[in-house]
């Protein structure tokens, strides 16, 4: 298996799955090459992300990285959330095979877009 135990755990038992009906912002992004999709809901409280949930359709790496990134967001300062990189996510999940690096981009794209939604810079 080319994936780490941790990544497989997030794929098998994804955290933060679902929707937030009264979300402050929602983003939907997709990867034009492989067709993976992620939808991200966040609730914001002051400078913090109070809650976050996701749904995704895609490969195991896309689902795991989406779940992991969403979990990271919960309780995080918005300013810190802006700094999340695909490398940070990939590393925290024990690395990704070269052909799967682009999957973690899905999550960072969703984060960028969701933050832009309610607080455009």
């Amino acid at each position, binding site marked *: *298996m080319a*994936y780490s135990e941790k990544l*497989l755990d997030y*794929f*098998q038992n*994804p955290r933060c*799955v679902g929707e937030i009906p009264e979300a402050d912002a929602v983003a*939907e992004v997709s990867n034009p*090459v*492989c*067709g*993976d*999709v*992620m*939808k991200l809901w966040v609730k914001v409280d002051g400078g913090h992300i109070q809650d976050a949930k996701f*749904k*995704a*359709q*895609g*490969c*195991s790496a*896309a*689902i795991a990285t989406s779940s992991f990134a969403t979990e990271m967001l919960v309780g995080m300062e918005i300013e810190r959330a802006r700094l999340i990189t695909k490398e940070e996510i990939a590393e925290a999940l024990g690395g990704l095979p070269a*052909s799967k690096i*682009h999957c973690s981009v899905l999550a960072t794209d969703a984060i960028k877009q969701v933050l832009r939604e309610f607080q455009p810079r």
Partner: protein
Amino acid sequence: MRRVYLDSNATTPVRPEVVAAMMSVLTEHFGNPSSIHWFGQHAKSMIDDARQHVARLINAEVSEIVFTSGGTEADNFAIRGIAESQKAKGRHIITSKIEHHAVLHTCQDLEKQGYEVTWIPVSRDGVVDASSVRRALRPDTILITIMHANNEIGTVQPIEEIGRIAEEADVYFHSDGVQSTGKIQVDVRKLKVDLYSISSHKIHGPKGAGALFVRKGTILKPLLTGGGHERNRRSGTENVAGIIGFGQAAKMARESLTSDMARVAELRDLLETALKSRIEFIQVNGENAPRLPNTTNIMVDYAEGEGLVISLDLKGVAVSTGSACSSGSMEPSHVLTAIGKTPDEAHGSLRLSLSALTTREDVEYVIEVLPGIVERLRDLSPYYKKV
């Protein structure tokens, strides 16, 4: 963990009898078949036997079988060999849009070298229309190369009909028979092919051995030059153990083809019917076409193929999505695109391929675990709404 292998179009387990035959080569009969002493001559005679088994599997003559390192080399040899030997006559090649990469990329490479290639489309069920091959013929056509059975969706092409067209037009005809051989009856005389590729590891033989059928009189430039092995058609010290294993596998495939494949078809049908009744929003690709008895390729809406494969793998079940060879790539399968699927649809495809060694228990296990897996992934999808 229980392990179920339903990825036989990627490769097959090696039969114990094949392993035993290879063992005797590796431990005792290690001679170089080119050597004139006992060690060499013994190895040579074993290769002669293997050649006979492979020839009989497809109704060729022994002198028409050239051993290669596998299906990919056989395809390259056939296509590049004719392209080179016939270039004075012309540079037009006819192929289909659903060929294996070994044919597809080789034809694309020839395009870069100044050859012209006509890519014949297929129906929504994944079948080439023979008459469109006829229409594509030109005075400078030197080769038609159309696969016998497709590796991803298992559809069987009208090779006999195309063979007649090629014969009438006096154009060389190659067919990639890697997936058909050992699964359906193959008779190169009836098919009227001039060249036909086979691979050992798809019929319970070892990887690294294959063969190209080269009809007597076919003018083919060698791909590998050197010591003049294989009657000057393919140089290189023979992979004796691999060839002997291939021969044994070919012998067994021929002996039990009819009964094995009847049983395999039954299991495949059981699998397909059960999955269709237990999982909504799925379609079987190529369902209405003539198909290999062992293959089913389903399209699962609201889920992605790799996620399905990994989920099944975690339950011990080996299957594939798209073609095994392109697993590193993110592009949607060119075969599914050719039968009219959108990239999104293509990404949700799953290929389950059985073999003579597949048991009813294997199939029942998959029927048991797959619906839950699909359900779980769909619950994660932002698009899926339960009905």
